[in-house]
Structures are given as C-alpha cells and as structure tokens.
C-alpha cells in the first residue's frame, strides 16, 4: 500500500493476530493463542501463565516481578516469556479494536 493511502487498520490488525498464532517462536502456538484470548476475558490458562496473562489484561501496571519470573522460569528463556507477555498485550488491544470497529460499522450500517 502506498504511503499516501490511508491505513487499512482491519488488515493490519488481522495480520498482527495471525502473526501471534503463526510466528517463528519458542512457545507453542496454542499457548500464544490462549494468552491472546485470555487477556480478552477468554478461558483460563494453567498456572503460572494465568496470573500473568490475566493481570496484563486487567491492569498491567499491577504485574509483579514474581508473575513474570514464574513464567520465565517455566519457559526457560527471556524470549519465550516475552512471547507470552506480547501475546497477552496484543489480545487485550485487539479485543478493544474489534469492539470499537463493530460499533463503527453498526453506526455506518444503520439506516
């Protein structure tokens, strides 16, 4: 898309969502998809992931050192823990994007 064109935000959001699920990563795709959904109030994950991912979704400023280090310890690397953090953050943001875009669409579609 040329730089002078307005952004197609839906395409960009969908590309980000797909990337979380399919990226070249250290963590299993299922874990990243589950984190994406959980931070948007989806089904719980097993410990220690659920505490961190839920906290990121609800109030990330309250995430603790212990929550991050518990996930890092289980996964064994900073990169793997980073993948879980980013998946949770992206999930919370994209849930809001979807809701907002639906509201915008409904406003435009209404007679």
């Amino acid at each position, binding site marked *: 898309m040329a730089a002078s064109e307005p*952004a197609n935000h839906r395409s960009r959001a969908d*590309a980000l969502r797909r990337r979380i699920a399919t990226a070249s990563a250290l963590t299993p795709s299922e874990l990243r998809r589950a984190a994406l959904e959980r931070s948007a109030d989806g089904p719980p994950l097993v410990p220690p992931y659920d505490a961190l991912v839920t906290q990121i979704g609800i109030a990330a400023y309250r995430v603790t050192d212990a929550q991050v280090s518990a996930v890092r310890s289980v996964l064994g690397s*900073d990169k793997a823990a980073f993948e879980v953090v980013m998946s949770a*953050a992206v999930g*919370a943001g994209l849930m*809001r994007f979807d809701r907002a875009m639906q509201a915008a669409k*409904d406003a435009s579609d209404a007679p």
Partner: protein
Amino acid sequence: MRLEEIDAGDTLGHRALIGFISLVSGMRLPDAARVAFYHQEFLGGTLGGWTQATMRGPSDWRIGERELMAALVAKWNSCAFCTGAHSAIAAKDIDPSLVQAAMNDFEAADISPKLKAMLKFLQKMTREPVTLTAADARSVLQTGVTKQALEDGIAVGALFNIVTRYADALSFAMPSSEEFDKAAVMLLKRGYG
C-alpha cells in the same frame, strides 16, 4: 526491565546499536526502543509497521492529536512511561498548555469538538470496551469526523492498549523529564518505523 536480555540486546549487532545510539543521543536508549530491537523474528514488522502507519501516516488527525490520544489511553491504563512519552511528543506539535489541559481534563479543555468526541470514545474503548455501541460511534461521526478518521482513532486506541500493557508488564524504566523531551524530538521526526 524485568527481562534482562531485552535491556542488554539479544544479538551482538543490537547490543552495539543500543550502545551507539545511547552514546550519540547522550541518554540511555529508552526501553520502548530496546523492545523494538528485541526478538524481531517473533512479530516481524506487524506491530511496528501498524504503529508507524497509524501514528505518522496520512490521517485527518494531526500528529499531535494522535499523540495526545495515545497519552490519554496511557493515562487511563495508568502507564506512567507512555503517559510521559506521548504527552511530551504531543507538546512538540500542539500548544503544550493545551496538551496539559487535555491531560488533566479533556472534556473541559479547549480542544476541538471532533477531538473531544474521539477521546470520549477512546476512554470507553479503553475502560469499558464491551459496552461500546453504535450510539458511541455516531456521537463521534456527528461532529464531522469521517469514518476513516474514526478508524484511525480506533487504531491509536488499540495500539496503545497493547503498548501500555507490555510497557508495564516488562517494567520500563522511567526517563527523566529532560530525557522524555529529548526523545520526543527524535520520535516526532522519525516516528516508529
């Protein structure tokens, strides 16, 4: 930074780049930039590219307005780093006293009705997303905001609901006011790409 490898850099090249930029700029490279360099094979350019397009691409919203949206989303998410960073950038493009007024109380600030309506929508999107309805969107469109501009604002809201969360989960170090100001000049010019 809770994950030390992000702080240090994950490759020799990134470590050298972090050191070089810090040296040339005269300040510690902020954690937001360190994250952008880190584990790039994971997200590729998907998040950074969308951020650049949203915050610096064509839009009816001027750059300062988009940065103000980002700063307020950060405030609503209690993210001190992003609140500081993006209000500083907004103040490079919009009257700083107006930025401050909007940060304190956007509904009372002397900003345009279009921007006020967009911010009200973003506040609900951030805090109570499941309650958003067509009526909320119509409130923005009725001020003359176009459908594209509404979507541009929504994209800012989505992106900064992402960025504020990883900034806080990773525990970004807080720059000083002078460092925020110096970084703001660079970010205004160079963006996020």
